[in-house]
C-alpha cells in the first residue's frame, strides 16, 4: 500500500471518527499534545486500524511513535 493511500485512510478516520480538526493533521503533529489523542481515544484507534488495515497495534511497538508522520510510517511498515 502506497504511503499516500495510508495517509488518506488514516486522516479520514481521524477526522470522521476521532473528530480531530483536519487542519491539525500535519506530519510533525504530536499525537498526544498536538492532536489531543488520549489513552481512551487510542483504544478506539486500535479498533479502527484493525478493521481498516487488518493488523493489531501492539503498545510496545508504539513507544517511539510520537508524531503523525511516524504513525503513518508505522502502519506502512506493518502493511507492506
Amino acid at each position, binding site marked *: 500500500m502506497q504511503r499516500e493511500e495510508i495517509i488518506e485512510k488514516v486522516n479520514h478516520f481521524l477526522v470522521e471518527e*476521532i473528530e480531530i480538526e483536519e487542519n491539525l493533521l500535519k506530519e510533525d503533529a504530536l499525537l498526544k499534545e498536538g492532536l489531543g489523542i488520549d489513552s481512551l481515544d487510542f*483504544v478506539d484507534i486500535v479498533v479502527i486500524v484493525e478493521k481498516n488495515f487488518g493488523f493489531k497495534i501492539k503498545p510496545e511497538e508504539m513507544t517511539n511513535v510520537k508524531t503523525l508522520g511516524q504513525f503513518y510510517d508505522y502502519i506502512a511498515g506493518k502493511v507492506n
Partner: protein
Amino acid sequence: MRRVVITGMGIYSCLGKNLDEVRQSLYAGKSGIGIEPIRTEYGYRSPLTGIVERPMLKGMLDRRSRVCLAEEGEYAYMATAEALRNAGIDMDYLEKNEVGVLFGNDSSAKAVIEAHTTAMQYKDTQMMGSGAIFQSMNSTVTMNLSTIFKLRGINMTISAACASGSHAIGLGLMFIRNGLQDMVICGGAQETHYLSMGSFDGIGAFSVRVDDPTKASRPFDRDRDGLVPGGGAAAVILEDYDHAVKRGAHIIAEVAGYGFSSNGANISQPSDMGSGIAMERALKDAGVQASDIDYINAHATSTLQGDAFEAMALDHLFTPYHTPISSTKSMTGHECWMAGASEIVYSNLMMLNSFIAPNINFENPDEYSKNLNIVNQTMEKNIDTYLSNSFGFGGTNSALVIKKIK
C-alpha cells in the same frame, strides 16, 4: 428542617421530547406505544414497546462524551439539559456551585450484550472499544452526567428496580433536607432497545395485545393482560427552598414527603401492605392526611397481580375521599427504572396546568379497582397536593407527596 422544592424539570419519552410536547400528549390522552418488529425476530412473546427516538447528539456533545453514553444516558442528557434550562442553571453556575446528581437506573444491557458479542467475534476485549466499560455499568447515567455537566456534589445511581427513579428523588430530598446539599439533579433513565428487555418478556409479563398497540396498556382494567415496556429519561432539579428563593428561581412544587418500605416477601409479587406502608409514610412525612390528596399517579403497570395489590392498598387508604387516580403508564407503558421520576414530571405538568391526564383504556373495573375513582377521560382539576407511587421487583416500594407552593 429545610424545605425542598423542584425548580426545573425535563423529559424525553414516548410522549414527547420536551415538556411542551409531553404536556400536550398527556392532555390529549395520546399513547406512545407501538410495535417494534425486531422483537418478534429476536424471540419476544410481545413486540409492543414505547417508541422513543434516539436523540442526535453530534454537534451537541463532543466525541468522548458521546462514546461513553449508553442509550439511556443519551435520554438522560436530553432530559437533564432541559431541566437545567428550565431551572435557569447554566454551565457558569455549575462551575461555581456544588451540585449533586442522583439518578435511578437498573441496567445497561445493550452495552453489555454488544461487548460480549464483540468479544466472541474477535476473541479480543480491546475490540470492545473505549466506551463499552462506561456504557455498561449501572452508574453509567450519573457518571456521564457528572462529567458532562461538571457536577461536584453527591454523585451516584440508585438501583431499585421499577422504583429507582422515585427513590432517587426521595434520597435527593434527604440530602437537601439534612443540609448536605443545596441542589441535586434527580431523575430516572430507562433503555428501550430490544436487547434490554428480553428477559422481562421471558417471564410472560408483557401484554400480547398486538392487534391494537395503543389499547395494550390498560392499568386497572378488567381485561388487561400485562405491561408494555417503555423508556426514556426524566430529570428534576431539587433545591433547598431558601436557596431557590435567594437566587430568584421559579418554584414548580415542593417535594413534601417521601415514604418507603420493603415487602420482605416474594421477588415478583407485590404487596398491598408493603405499598400501603410506603404511602402512609409519605403522607406522614409531608404532614398531610389522605383527604388532602387531590390526585394519585398510581404505579399500576397493567399486570394482573400488580394492579390488584395496588388497588387494594388505594382502596384501603383513599376510597372514602373519592380521590382521582390515574396511571400514566396507560399511555407511556412501564418506564421501569425511569418511571418514578417521569411520573413526577408528568404529574407536575398536570398540577401546573390544572388537569388530570387520563388512565386511557380503563373501560371496565375488576373486583379490586371497582371502588376506586379512576379517571379515564382528561379532567380539568386544580391539584394542590398529589401522591406518586412506585413499586419494584424484590418488594421495594417508594411514594412521594408533592405540593404546590403557596
